């Protein structure tokens, strides 16, 4: 049973397709075209072939259409904003809804921004990310049990990347774990999962002597990435950035007079830093860094390029390569799962999954014809559906139409010929190495 106003798309994944909209009397009318930007559908206008008995229904539909349009505008106002929201417009930022946040999908253009990060440097507002303080006598034990990677390798001010799993091996989130001390850890989690992750952490505290604090709304974060990132950032700080090694942090760095924690981490496959500060100082930081880097080619970067950059570097995105239904082993990040650890949530399930041999795996593929693969497109071997594209793009640096797909493991060998279903047409592709791009991390 459909509710009034419910939208039933006719084609997945295409903008401006004809849709059917349910009217009060439950008839479906093919009236509206819709567009997608980010994850939001919005109705742009009345169009299409109108059936004869429309009459009164047409008027109802028009009223519904107008109210849906107003609904969208209101929702934009209800979105969460970082302290930098008012700065986006100055640089031509196009704002969209990302996981309930009003964030720029692009400034100058996705391809230009992508190339700026690869060739010079880019500055990202990533203040929407979540942060959790973990403090107490049992802080280490808590984190070691919570995540799949081995936290015991961390020295003070060292960072690691890890998935966090459910009992069945599915993924709760992927995150960074910073060790500030034996009794103090700092977890950096995805914006879309903040509430879910924090609830999960609280639930799994047990009787451990540890205090968890969700400080996400108090922390702002910028990322500066690219071969010139260090050079630009160095102009604004006395701290010798050479001393901050790859996956290490310094908790007391003054950048342009603003106190920050700086780590040599990032999500682009390039050298760079992530800069954490409070909400007061981040606007000045953003402006000063952009000014300092302008002559070096530093640009502000939106979410669009953030996704193409991490995809080319084969870094997973929760919601695409990882989810509650996909284990880190299936997603291809088994390197960050230490099954030799005494215990962590999901260990038994993952040990079993590995012992039985993975039924599904994540592979890279390249299109053999001009078409572009995208998230959600189905993957076939001959006529048989074997999986789905998790992320796909016309990759700006590598200049190939490539993707990642989660498929039946028995088709996972390099060179296997597969088909991607693109708008009802089977388009040939071939499984290739996931190493699309050689990362340029600092040694």
């Amino acid at each position: 049973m459909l509710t009034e106003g419910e939208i039933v798309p006719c084609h997945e994944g295409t903008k401006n397709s004809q849709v059917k909209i349910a009217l009060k009397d439950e008839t479906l009318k093919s009236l509206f075209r819709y567009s997608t930007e980010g994850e939001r559908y919005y109705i742009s206008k009345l169009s299409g072939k109108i059936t004869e008995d429309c009459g009164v229904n047409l008027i109802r539909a028009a009223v519904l259409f107008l109210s849906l349009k107003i609904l969208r505008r209101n929702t934009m106002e209800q979105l969460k904003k970082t302290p930098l929201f008012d700065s986006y417009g100055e640089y031509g930022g196009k704002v969209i809804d990302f996981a309930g946040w009003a964030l720029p999908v692009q400034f100058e253009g996705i391809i230009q921004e992508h190339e700026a990060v690869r060739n010079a440097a880019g500055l990202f507002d990533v203040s929407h990310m979540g942060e959790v303080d973990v403090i107490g006598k049992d802080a280490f034990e808590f984190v070691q049990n919570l995540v799949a990677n081995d936290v015991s390798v961390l020295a003070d001010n060292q960072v690691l990347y890890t998935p966090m799993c459910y009992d069945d091996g599915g993924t709760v989130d992927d995150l960074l774990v910073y060790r500030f001390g034996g009794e103090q850890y700092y977890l950096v989690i995805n914006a879309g999962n903040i509430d879910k992750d924090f609830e999960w952490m609280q639930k799994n505290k047990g009787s451990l002597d540890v205090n968890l604090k969700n400080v996400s709304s108090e922390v702002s974060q910028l990322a500066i990435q690219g071969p010139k990132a260090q050079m630009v950032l160095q102009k604004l700080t006395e701290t010798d950035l050479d001393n901050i090694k790859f996956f290490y942090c310094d908790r007391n760095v003054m950048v342009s007079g603003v106190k920050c924690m700086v780590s040599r981490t990032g999500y682009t496959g390039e050298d760079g830093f992530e800069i954490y500060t409070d909400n007061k100082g981040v606007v000045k930081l953003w402006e000063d860094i952009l000014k300092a880097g302008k002559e070096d080619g530093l640009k502000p970067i939106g979410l669009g390029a953030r996704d193409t950059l991490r995809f080319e570097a084969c870094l997973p995105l929760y919601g695409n390569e990882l989810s509650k239904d996909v284990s880190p082993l299936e997603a291809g990040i088994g390197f960050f799962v230490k099954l030799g650890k005494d215990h962590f949530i999901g260990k038994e399930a993952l040990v079993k999954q590995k012992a039985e041999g993975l039924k599904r795996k994540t592979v890279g593929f390249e299109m053999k014809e001009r078409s572009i693969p995208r998230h959600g497109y189905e993957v076939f071997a001959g006529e048989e559906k074997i999986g789905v594209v998790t992320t796909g793009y016309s990759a700006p640096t590598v200049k190939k139409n490539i993707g990642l797909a989660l498929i039946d493991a028995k088709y996972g060998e390099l060179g296997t010929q597969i088909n991607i279903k693109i708008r009802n047409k089977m388009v040939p592709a071939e499984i290739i190495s996931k190493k699309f791009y050689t990362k340029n991390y600092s040694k």
Partner: protein
Amino acid sequence: MKILEGLFYSSDHEWVKMEGEKAYVGITDFAQSSLGDIVFIELPEVDTELSKDDVFGTIESVKAASDLNIPVSGKVVEVNEELVDNPAAVNEDPYGNWMVAIELSDKVELEGLMNTKQYEELCSKEA
């Protein structure tokens, strides 16, 4: 946002230019700006018969794929193959890069399209 005189416009942000009996069709500055960097264009074959509002091709930006809808009925008589190799040309010059030329089957349909002023109003409403 550039809007040219002497063209017809559709509510889908396509423009139509009459040259003799042929209708040349492309997308407007508003459309290319909303799409962002265009990375792929798929166009129909010559002789394809189309009815008004039929999907005649696909245009893809980095983030999304969109259908192209024909604003007028008729037969495809010319296709701009250059756009297949260089889709970004549409971002650079949306009015100078037509996509298809149609031999109209019903000239009356042109009266259902917008003129410059009406299209300007549509753009300010949708901005």
